[in-house]
């Protein structure tokens, strides 16, 4: 339990909650400016080829004559945009080719023109007047096609590339090896094997807020309101494209209506909005359509994963192999790092992990909640279930037996690891001991019941970040950092951390985000915000308290004048001296000279990434679920979910549970509903993307081990944004196997697969 005067650990309501329930919370598209113009995009309708210049010209002319149209931007009149630096494009999914820089078409949904008008209706109408003609070329639409066909030559000085490649590491993290092995090359003869192939489809982040931008220029300086979750990266990308200094760009990202990995990296439409605003010398607003969200803000690419687990009699793993084939676009690098956690999740003396990326004629993919782990653990944790059934062992028992006591990739010990407690608590809460092992052995009201489980894991990460402190004797202390409130509760938990470290009640502190004028913070992703920004806020608040103590001992009129600062404590807004004398801090500060106080207590701090050499940092958890399968109508319903997580200290259990529920619901969608419906031949969108609704979610029982990890950061947290989703699809697929006897290895698991008659004769079924 949190001590009475501390804010951390309490179920504090969201600090921006009042604004969110009254509609006064402002997101990027909610801002208004005099003379605002509205943009809409024209996008390509073929996957590969070239748009005819003449059709662009005549379309643009037609649109320009339409009512209210102010400007039409096409490759024919777009001022040349710079190529981004290699640092941004070689291991991050920013495109090598600037937007509207040529007539070649590399995928459906590539920007081909922007129409700007005086109203949204007129802009949309202008777009509808486009009628483009193309010279089509044979596209490569899948990794299989790329691998079986000759590799076309690079184009545009390597901006457009084809073929496939084997990336070395994940983003800028050289230790996260995408090609990795240890131990002997061959499996020991005394083992038995599971050898299965799993596939995952194209998934979309689908934040409910559409990506939105408002750009305007004032005296050569650019201001952009954008629904971005990486202010510093966007500023760098825009400076690169536009050839202006970063200092001349201000990015504002007030509140973000969900991101889940999108709203970052793919900023071509933002750059075009800035260009249009510069040409027109008035503010321009662009809101992507829901369809454009599929092509223009990234997605999770398809994966095909082969897993081989070999184990000795009794279930001890001897070797693990995880080979991933995935896809990126022809204009950007991205690798879905599905095999990363196979390198360390279970004890495995022999290991081989590989990732091959094929460049296809599709939009550029990017990170999506649980990048790597979400599809990767679907494969690994399904394979573990297959191994359990092959060995005739309880799935939890198999995992306990193969628990990894150290990080086998580098020999380091874990900073903290409580995975065994997660299994134990989860199985008790769920009532797992009542599970009968045999598939199809549990029924209720005429439908099959299955109980499945899976391990969850996601790295603990921390990066450098800055924090500003602004003290106002009337209002209180404002902390500010260029991070983003994407629904992760960062404003609330940072306020809690700041309040405790300052020794103030929460009402005296606030936390502001979403402005590039604040000190830099990294992207809001990779579950690192709380550890990263939290460390900066903590450092700033500690510094603030030191400075306050200096003030109260140096002011001649202060009751603590000449006291030893080390003997003073400040809690809940009250200063206490060692001899038991107490004065309210705020009343005291008001008696001092305001300018002196505010000046002394307004400053910036920078925190580093901490010492990450000594330990390996990883969060863990265990999912247990029940699925009802009605085989007559091919419906799987997830009815009950128990999850226990080891993510370090929990700052706000109310918000943490909510975020984990969201993660599990995200994974549930991935398991049973979600795939971007591209037509296999034309690669056009041909349907809807189904998401979990109120009707689809199970009853939740979510809990945390809540043991701090002070080795990663001074507040003891490891982040919870991704881990909720990781392992969920496998837990569901394993429950479906238990319910039906069908081992389904292709996501999403849909009606067709569930209605196939039983038994299905696969080698794995015979092994059971």
């Amino acid at each position, binding site marked *: 339990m949190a001590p009475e005067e501390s804010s951390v650990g309490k179920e504090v*309501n*969201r600090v921006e909650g009042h604004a969110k329930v009254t509609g006064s919370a402002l997101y990027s598209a909610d801002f208004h400016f005099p003379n605002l113009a509205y943009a809409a995009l024209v996008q390509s309708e073929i996957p590969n080829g070239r748009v005819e210049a003449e059709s662009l010209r005549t379309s643009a002319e037609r649109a320009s004559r339409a009512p209210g149209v102010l400007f039409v931007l096409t490759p024919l009149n777009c001022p040349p945009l710079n190529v981004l630096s290699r640092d941004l494009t070689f291991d991050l999914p920013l495109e090598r080719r600037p937007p509207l820089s040529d007539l070649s078409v590399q995928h459906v949904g590539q920007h081909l023109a922007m129409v700007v008008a005086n109203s949204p209706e007129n802009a949309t109408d202008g777009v509808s007047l486009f009628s483009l003609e193309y010279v089509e070329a044979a596209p490569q639409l899948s990794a299989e096609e790329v691998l079986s066909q000759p590799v076309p030559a690079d184009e545009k000085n390597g901006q457009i590339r084809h073929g496939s490649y084997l990336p070395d590491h994940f983003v800028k993290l050289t230790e996260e090896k995408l090609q990795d092995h240890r131990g002997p090359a061959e499996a020991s003869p005394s083992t038995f094997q599971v050898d299965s192939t799993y596939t995952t489809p194209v998934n979309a982040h689908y934040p409910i807020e559409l990506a939105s931008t408002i750009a305007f220029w004032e005296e050569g300086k650019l201001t952009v309101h954008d629904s971005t979750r990486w202010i510093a990266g966007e500023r760098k990308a825009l400076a690169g494209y536009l050839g202006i200094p970063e200092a001349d760009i201000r990015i504002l990202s007030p509140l973000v209506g969900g991101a889940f990995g999108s709203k970052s990296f793919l900023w071509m439409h933002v750059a075009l909005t800035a260009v249009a605003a510069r040409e027109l010398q008035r503010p321009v607003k662009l809101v992507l359509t829901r369809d454009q969200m599929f092509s223009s803000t990234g997605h999770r690419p398809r994966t095909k994963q082969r897993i081989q687990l070999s184990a000795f009699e009794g279930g001890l793993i001897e070797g693990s192999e995880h080979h991933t084939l995935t896809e990126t676009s022809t204009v950007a690098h991205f690798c879905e790092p599905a095999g990363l956690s196979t390198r360390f999740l279970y004890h495995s003396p022999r290991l081989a992990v590989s990732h091959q990326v094929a460049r296809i004629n599709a939009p550029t993919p990017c990170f999506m909640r649980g990048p790597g782990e979400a599809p990767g653990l679907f494969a690994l944790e399904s394979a573990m279930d297959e191994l359990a059934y092959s060995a005739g062992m309880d799935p939890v028992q198999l995992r306990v037996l193969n628990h990894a006591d150290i990080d086998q990739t580098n020999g380091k010990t874990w900073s903290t690891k409580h995975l065994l407690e997660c299994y134990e608590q989860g199985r008790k809460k769920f009532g797992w001991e009542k599970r009968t092992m045999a598939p199809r052995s549990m029924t209720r009201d005429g439908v099959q019941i299955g109980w499945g489980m899976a391990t969850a894991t996601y790295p603990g990460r921390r990066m450098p970040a800055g924090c500003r402190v602004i003290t106002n004797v009337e209002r209180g202390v404002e902390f500010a950092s260029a991070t983003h409130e994407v629904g992760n509760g960062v404003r609330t938990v940072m306020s809690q951390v700041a309040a405790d470290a300052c020794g103030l009640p929460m009402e005296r502190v606030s936390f502001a985000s979403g402005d590039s004028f604040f000190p830099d913070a990294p992207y809001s992703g990779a579950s690192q915000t709380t550890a990263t920004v939290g460390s900066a806020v903590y450092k700033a608040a500690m510094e603030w308290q030191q400075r306050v103590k200096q003030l109260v001992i140096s002011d001649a009129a202060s009751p603590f004048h000449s006291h030893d600062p080390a003997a003073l404590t400040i809690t809940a807004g009250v200063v206490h001296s060692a001899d038991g004398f107490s004065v309210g801090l705020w009343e005291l500060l008001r008696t001092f000279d305001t300018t002196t106080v505010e000046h002394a207590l307004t400053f910036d701090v920078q925190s580093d990434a901490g010492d990450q050499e000594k330990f390996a940092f990883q969060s863990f958890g265990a999912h247990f679920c029940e699925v009802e399968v009605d085989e007559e109508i091919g419906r799987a319903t997830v009815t009950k979910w128990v999850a226990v997580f080891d993510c370090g200290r929990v700052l706000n259990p109310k918000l943490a549970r909510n975020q984990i529920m969201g993660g599990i619901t995200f994974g549930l969608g991935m398991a049973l509903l979600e795939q971007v419906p591209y037509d296999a031949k034309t690669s056009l969108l041909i349907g809807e993307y189904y998401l979990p609704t109120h009707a689809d979610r199970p009853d939740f029982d979510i809990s945390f081990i809540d043991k701090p990890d002070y080795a990663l950061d001074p507040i003891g947290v490891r982040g919870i944004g991704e881990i909720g989703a990781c392992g969920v699809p496998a837990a569901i697929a394993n429950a479906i196997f238990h319910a039906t006897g069908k081992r389904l290895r292709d996501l999403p698991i849909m009606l067709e697969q569930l209605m196939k008659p039983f038994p299905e004769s696969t080698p794995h079924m015979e092994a059971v």
Partner: protein
Amino acid sequence: MMPDHSQEQASASLPTFPLTLNINGETRSLEIDIRTTLLDLLRERLNKPGTKKGCDHGLCGACTVSVNGERVVSCLTLAASIDGSDVLTIEGLADGAELSSLQQCFLEHDGFQCGYCTPGQISSAHAMLAEHARGDLSMVSFETTREAVLTGQLELTEHEVRERMAGNICRCGAYANIVAAVRAADQRGRA
């Protein structure tokens, strides 16, 4: 501040439509582009951006408002088609600084994360509670007793709320908290 399109609109040769709406108790009369949806009208012309656009084609429920007391998705409602109506948006639910009990329950139960679906969830729930109170049935209602179905005296169970709120998508996945908030508001309303 709102952009002034009146000059530009006049120069364009498109038909306009004189529209009068009562929005959150305030009467507004203006000339509109006949293609304008209620959603774009609220957001782009009337400075009421609390109502959100999540899909613009009736899929997500983020744009839900009440028109004459009934919930509609404002992205599929042509403004010209509801001339003379009363519109209630999220901005009109609180009583001054005092939150409505539904809003208060969303806040306490943490019925959101990013908050983008929230105006739609709350507006939808607001109208749904009225539907339920007057005895409108849902699919789920038929799983109860004959008596309850005939009289429309139905308990607002968890299952009922989930069914009746199924048109409002929350990608953040705050569903359980949303249902808890709606049920708590219903209880408070009865108390």
